């Protein structure tokens, strides 16, 4: 008896929760409204079945409860009923599958006029590449990845020279233009997912996967990684900014292309660049190349590891309560033996970078120093 009541309450509670809870799809920002429609249809169908069967069980528990003189009925087969149920279930299944596959066939067919965007995932940040004026992305290979070639573009491929590079985790897109996102990984599996766009796709190192969508409203949307990729998986967040085509063009021109990045690397020391400038630059490039920026931000945002902004010279408390001043020696130690003195509140999660040369360590320390409030020492 109590069970029947509880089953009814569960049904009522579930329906009420569905209708009145604040947790629902994020507001759609892409063309994939058909996915939302499929979701709603599926909820409706399964919801009806859920309610019906639970209420039926509740009814049966009461109506057919054990009583003094009652015996149960021995009837245990009813071919007609069974086949009817099979047919009805099959119809229900087809009713879900057919429209679902229809929408899916659109998912696998990006429109021919879609602009191309490459999203590159690595532990634990995003970067992006656009084809530039020639409309083609240059060939890539992880073997080319280096300090002045973040994306691993083949320097000998002419199509790659004008590729536009976006090295922070924020990408802009023009409103209303379909975009086909090519997905590439440098290291492990990742997944490109913007909840408001609905679509997602894993990024597999060694191959290129893709998805497509058309942004239908302006705004700034979270890009999250949706395939577990290691310790910093939860911190691998980016931003997708959808804006008017004019604003997009303006943003586009603020990004450098591959030819420039190559030139930076190959440039002979400029008379205006002091050795210290070069040291800082080297440190900055190392921070990117070695993956430091996967866990350490430079703008004060919290992440897996302490932010480098304002770090140099700071007083930090370690896990055991002792105080330490963050100086060059401490930073070097934390790079080659990260678990030696961990700042309180942070996990002992940093891998050891024991193969860095003294020069490289010096560069990193110097770069980190420049991120503190105190003016650069000259």
């Amino acid at each position, binding site marked *: 008896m109590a069970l029947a009541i509880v089953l009814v309450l569960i049904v009522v*509670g579930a329906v009420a929760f569905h209708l009145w809870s604040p947790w629902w799809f*994020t507001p759609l920002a892409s063309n994939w409204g058909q996915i939302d429609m499929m979701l709603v249809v599926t909820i409706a169908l399964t919801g009806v079945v859920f309610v019906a069967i639970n209420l039926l069980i509740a009814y*049966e528990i009461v109506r057919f409860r054990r009583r003094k003189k009652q015996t149960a009925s021995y009837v245990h087969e009813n071919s007609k009923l069974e086949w009817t149920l099979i047919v009805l279930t099959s119809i229900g299944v087809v009713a879900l599958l057919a429209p679902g596959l229809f929408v899916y066939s659109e998912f696998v067919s990006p429109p021919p006029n879609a602009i191309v965007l490459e999203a590159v995932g690595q532990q634990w940040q995003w970067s992006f590449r656009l084809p530039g004026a020639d409309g083609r992305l240059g060939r890539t290979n992880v073997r080319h990845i280096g300090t002045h070639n973040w994306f691993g573009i083949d320097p000998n491929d002419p199509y790659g020279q004008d590729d536009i590079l976006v090295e922070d985790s924020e990408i802009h897109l023009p409103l209303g233009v379909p975009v086909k996102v090519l997905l590439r990984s440098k*290291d492990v599996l990742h997944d490109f997912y913007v909840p408001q766009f609905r679509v997602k796709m894993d990024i597999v190192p060694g191959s290129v996967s893709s998805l497509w969508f058309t942004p239908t409203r302006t705004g700034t949307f*979270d890009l999250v990684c949706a395939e*577990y990729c290691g310790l910093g998986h939860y911190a691998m967040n980016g931003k997708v900014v959808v804006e008017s085509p004019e604003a997009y063009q303006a943003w586009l021109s603020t990004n450098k292309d591959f030819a420039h990045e190559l030139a930076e690397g190959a440039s002979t020391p400029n008379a205006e660049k002091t050795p210290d400038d070069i040291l800082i630059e080297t440190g900055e490039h190392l921070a990117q190349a070695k993956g430091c920026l996967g866990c350490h931000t430079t703008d004060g945002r919290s992440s897996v590891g302490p932010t480098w902004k304002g770090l140099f010279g700071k007083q930090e408390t370690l896990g055991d309560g002792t105080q330490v001043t963050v100086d060059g020696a401490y930073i070097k130690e934390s790079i080659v033996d990260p678990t030696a003195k961990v700042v309180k509140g942070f996990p002992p999660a940093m891998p050891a970078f024991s193969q860095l040369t003294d020069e490289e360590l010096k560069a990193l320390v110097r770069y980190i120093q420049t991120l503190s409030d105190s003016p650069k020492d000259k």
Partner: protein
Amino acid sequence: MAQAASIGGEQHGPQGFWTKYVFSQDHKIIAMQYSSTAILVGVLGMVMSWVIRLQLGFPGQFDFISPSTYYQTITLHGMIMVVYLLTALLLGGFGNYFIPLMIGARDMAFPYLNMLSYWFYFLSVIVLLASFFVPGGPTGAGWTLYPPQSITAGTPGSGMGILVMLTSLVIFIVATTMGGLNYITTVLQLRAKGMTLMRMPLTVWGVFVASIIALLAFPALFVGGVMLLLDRVVGSSFFMPAVVSLGQQLDYKGGSPLLFQHLFWYFGHPEVYIVALPAFGLASDIISCHARKPIFGYRMMVWAIVAIGGISFTVWAHHMFVSGMNPYFGFFFASTTLVIAIPTAIKVYNWVLTLWGGSIRLVTPMLFAIGFVSTFLVGGLTGLFLGNVVVDIPLTDTYFVIAHFHLVMGVSAIMAIFAGIYQWFPKITGRMLSEGLGRLHFWVTFIGVYALFFPMHYLGFLGVPRRYFAYEGVNFIPPSAAGLNVFISVAALVTGAAQLVLLFNLAWSVFKGKKAEDNPWQATTLEWQTPHTPPRHGNWGAELPVVNRWAYDYSVPGAPQDYLPQNYETPAEQPQRAST
């Protein structure tokens, strides 16, 4: 070493302590060994779930939960629950205990192999637990162990932990193979006279087909595991493409991470049916018994079990819809997945139809069996979302999936197991479990799991990704979700605590429980008809039972009582026997 075969008179089993209790070849002892090991390791898995929920409900409050610890915990929680608890308990525990008894045999076909299979399982558990003590700790790659991350720096345990895990799995696979050979051979060859396949109880059918699936699916995990081991240990490139890991160029090249996923899920999907099919069988027998009514549509139920078993090998890539595999595969696997919904739905209808017109007594096993149907319904229905490829795309890798698989495996299968424990405890121990404590256990668990998992689907609709240590820096999740996470965590902890009631009940009732009659539930199946309770070595005394009827003769019109055991002879049947 050989057991005395029965020719006449009592069974003379082994006499020494070691051969009687430790290296026993008696299926009942082995079943108890499997069950107690599985339950112990399951409790560990449950404690791990508390750690996970503490972090998700109260992020930043617990210093000892670092991202590293968190990811190691979710990995071991998943692996322990799916493999070392559910598979071992349902096949090694329930399968071992009930197959010989339900089919009228004295023991399994290969008792020595049976004994070995337990000790291999035990060894696999020890090796798994050893991963806590190796440098770097256990693997934190997620229970799916996907390369490249499972073997590259940046994932906890990618040094030693993953090796220990893979070794443990290989040993477990050997154990399960030995077990599977036993269960299948026994069901096919050792049934008592009159026990045709279509007279077997559905519990046996469930374990039987699950064992067949196990034998055909685990080798794929074995192959994937060995190849992953080689990639990690010798640096081969079965699965590893050229990568730059945390700034270091690694030596691998040309391998395919998707190849691992195909091998893993070719095993992984049948695995969930290895867990579900025995649960279906248990539920069917218990519902029938306590509704005093034959299971509705027995033939269809058998065919559904077989069909589900077969089709389960054609659906695996529904776990890979967004994996980056050839997108056209999505059409095929969505279709097969939704097709498998049909025999599954039939089973649900038949459980419900069994209740119709019955004489239902809501004892604790029946409460859990009905709880099984209700929670399996929710879990199964959400499978329809995830199987339909385009609907899966926004939901995969979110909390919707976590809610789905916990409901079908972690909740409904466990409910069926609880139903089984309450149902058969009297036969196994000769004592009754406390009905009061059983009800308490049921109510908190049943309401608790709904509170826990139903709202979780909505976090999935919102798009909240899974396997996240914390949700900082994302704006699409409203602050209210934090409150929901607190609610879910509290529900989880309370529901978890309620399981201790069962553990206490078990321990107490073994010694102090009310003495049980031979057949306290008046059930028809053979295991209730043994001459002794608990059954002794050899199970049946001098003579094996002879079966005259199917397993569901409850409330037969005109019968002297409301159940007819499978080996019962009506007066009309007796003269026949006298003449042979």
